């Protein structure tokens, strides 16, 4: 296996790992109201950069699923669409975070056991 295929495989696994986490991160960040660009910036500032072409359609999908609610409002002389977590989204986020913590704990245990051997 050469370096190129190694990189390709890592990239594919990394994307797979990130895919689920991104949704949790977006839902968590939208406990505060944001429009597309500021949400992307807020996530990037915390170390989680997401491509615009991934994030913006994701927001609409999450809204269609009822996890987000949105409203058009004027700000700085521009009409912007602001998103916020819906009550249903809050419930789902709580469940996802519990699941995430469970996975995280298990993974830490596995890694700790691996080190002991």
């Amino acid at each position, binding site marked *: 296996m050469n370096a190129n295929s190694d990189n390709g495989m890592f990239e594919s696994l990394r994307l797979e790992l990130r895919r689920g986490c991104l949704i949790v991160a977006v839902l968590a960040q939208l406990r505060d109201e944001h429009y*597309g660009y500021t949400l992307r910036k807020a996530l990037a500032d915390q170390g989680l950069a997401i491509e*615009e072409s991934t994030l913006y359609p994701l927001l*609409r999908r999450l809204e269609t699923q009822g996890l987000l609610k949105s409203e058009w409002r004027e700000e700085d002389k521009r009409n912007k669409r602001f998103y916020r977590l819906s009550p249903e989204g809050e419930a789902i986020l709580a469940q996802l975070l519990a699941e995430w913590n469970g996975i995280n704990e298990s993974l830490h245990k596995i890694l700790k056991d691996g080190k002991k051997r």
Partner: protein
Amino acid sequence: MDLLERYLQAVGQYLPQETREDVLAELRVNLLAEMDARADEMERPLTESEAAAILKAHGRPMVVAARYLPQHSLIGPAVFPFYLLTLRKGAPLVVLIYFVARVATFVFSPSAGAFVASIATSFAQLVPVLLLFWGAVTMTFAILEFAHTQTGQCASWNAWDPAKLPPLAHPKKEKSLASRIADLVLHCLWILYVLAVPQHPYLILGPGVLFLTKLSAGFAPMWRLFYVTFIIVLLAQLGIKLMALARGNHRSEQPLELFTNLLGLVPAGLLAFNKVYFVPTGSAANLHALAQINYWTNVGFRIGLVVVVLNLLVESWQYLRRAVPAERLAF
């Protein structure tokens, strides 16, 4: 900002009318905010090429629009394994049915030339038949996928009973030494029998020899050529059996056996392509009866050739399945 409007127009071309305006308005605000932030960083308005770089990073219009559309797949991951299994199991069956259906054409084709042409046509026509099979299976599974996504029911796909699993397969046992020796002896006896046939034709034809004499008919010259090629094939098989016995290794025997079976097509082809097997030996010969005998003998040999070819195809496929890793044979 002409470039931004052109970009949005291009994205809009691929969006459904009902959501187009809304999506484009949101995209416009986000891209403008991005451009403003970049201009603030640089403390000057963006040049055309800098704005173009932002749009380029955002993505090709068609791809960007596609991400706003509902995600559909023709055959999704829940149904795909069944689709693949149907293709893998069904394709050999379709090929078999197709060739069996063509046998009548092979057997009753009027001349050897037409016979060869018929085989060539059959192989050429197999391609559209397989394409049709693939298309029909794909369409059926696409409909099933559609129904599956509409109803969200997948219970019947996952319903299975472990008790119905096939029993454990036992690896094929190698032939014992005694059985290989017995096989060799039988083969030698078979060669002796064949060698005795020219002096004693009744060994093959039985009471048919008397019938030929009664008809004032004898063997056509083609039998000499057939006989020589047949003996060569038998001797090649004898060589392989001796070699396998001497090496005590059965592994190399099978491809060589396949090769001699392929050689066996030569005498079988000679029989099938010839039309005159028996010729009159006197003026009292019943030419009409002789013509009938030649015709039906030819039909019999053609059927035999088809059986030999099909058998060879099956044996080759079985050998390839064992010898070549499954993923290389999968389609």
